[in-house]
């Protein structure tokens, strides 16, 4: 049996126990630092937290899919038509450099409090790492492999589909491992800027009411969701890339 996960679980359990003990001994008020037991109680009471998490997850995954697709398509375009690179990268860098916190309110005014602005913010956050890694991945093919394929008169589409695309897969998974947790952050930040539902909205309401157990519970759920989507990407990577 592997000892690593057991040690990690015991460490977390130890820290949570210490937190509980310190809060109880020092009699710290709940509106400052709630005890883990109070957070757990809040989680168990199902006070709309799980539906909110589902909405945030849906926004994050939708934004990630759109952002990753846009990044990938742009990278494919640059790979086939190199002269597009400067124009695409200039715009991409401009979008990347614009703080999402500044864009989110504008999008909320334009698109309302619903699903749309959250998906757009998430897509804006996630397309860049996919774009950069995909370009790098498509270009990572060794020159000797490229020469060999050309000696067989492989067409550009054959070189792309049979060599560049599979060669880029580790780079794409590296990008998704960065982009997936980023998507969760993007969705929550956009919800903070104005939303009728979602984890961000739940946090905002808890913050306004100084409901610290609820706020901590929402943070915990968000953390677990981010770790979960990261883990899913890693699992897919392990199943897809067997040669490494």
């Amino acid at each position: 049996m592997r000892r690593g996960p057991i040690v990690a679980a015991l460490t977390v359990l130890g820290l949570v126990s210490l937190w509980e003990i310190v809060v109880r001994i020092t009699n710290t008020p709940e509106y400052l630092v709630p005890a883990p037991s109070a957070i757990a109680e809040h989680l168990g009471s199902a006070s709309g937290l799980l539906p909110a998490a589902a909405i945030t997850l849906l926004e994050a995954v939708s934004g990630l899919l759109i952002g990753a697709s846009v990044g990938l398509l742009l990278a494919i375009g640059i790979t086939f038509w190199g002269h597009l690179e400067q124009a695409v990268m200039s715009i991409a860098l401009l979008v990347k450099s614009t703080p999402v916190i500044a864009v989110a309110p504008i999008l909320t005014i334009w698109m309302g409090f619903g699903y749309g602005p959250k998906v757009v913010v998430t897509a804006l956050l996630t397309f860049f790492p996919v774009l950069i890694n995909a370009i790098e991945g498509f270009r990572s093919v060794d020159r000797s492999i490229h020469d060999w394929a050309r000696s067989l008169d492989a067409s550009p589409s054959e070189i792309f589909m049979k060599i560049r695309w599979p060669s880029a897969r580790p780079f794409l998974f590296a990008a998704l491992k960065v982009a997936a947790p980023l998507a969760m952050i993007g969705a929550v930040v956009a919800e903070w800027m104005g939303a009728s539902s979602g984890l961000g909205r739940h946090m905002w309401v808890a913050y306004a009411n100084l409901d610290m157990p609820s706020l901590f519970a929402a943070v915990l759920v968000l953390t677990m969701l981010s770790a979960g989507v990261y883990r899913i990407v890693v699992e897919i990577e392990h199943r897809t890339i067997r040669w490494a």
Partner: protein
Amino acid sequence: MTAPELYFRAVTKRYSTPRVTALEKVDLEIGAGSITAVIGVSGSGKSTLLRLAGGLDQPTEGEIVIGGRNPQEMRQSKGIGWMSQHPALLPWRTAAENIKLAQTINPQPEREMTPPGELLAMVGLEDFGDAYPSTLSGGMQQRVSLARTLAVGGSLWLMDEPFAALDELKRDALADEMLGLWEASRPTVVWVTHHITEAVKLADEIVVLTPSPGTIASRFPIDLERPRDETSPAFQMIVRRARSILRESPAVSGFEATG
């Protein structure tokens, strides 16, 4: 597929970045079904010569004719077997899948292809069809690469220092295997090498290039019977001759005169 003759007619190749003339008015004819070793110091245009023959680069001046066709036509008909110093295997494909890929790219339905398993058996790797390249040694990877060169059934093999990254024992063993495979189908082979002994052991003719720009300094046939005894006086005499021609070249520092 009948082995073609290969002609370079007044071939010059200039590159713009960096601005350099790699080859200058090279005239060369290579006999059908022969092995020609091309040697020269670093920067003498050996690899350029091979890339031009393979249609991977275009000559600035002059023309290249391979059995009545140009290099592009040879590529289109998958008439070229290309092998470089790096095995150039795709890491996500097994040994057999790498070989299969060579047969499925630019498919030639009219040509009968040898199954990958048989090709691997020819290079002594019949038990490694399902192995990924990362699990194979450098020598085994080059064997797979050699099997892949055979896979398309090309009549012109262009080999750019294919065994240079291997140790001497593996290099000798693979050179012997290559020779056996060449004798089975007798393609025309152009073999670029830094290794004089290897050139004398394998080739029917040696072509020596001068350094930048590359021109033909000398060419001479090797009339020794195969298999060749490296310790024989005749063999050693040819090695010394090739080495002395290279030493007379203006820049010998890049040459590994280890043969």
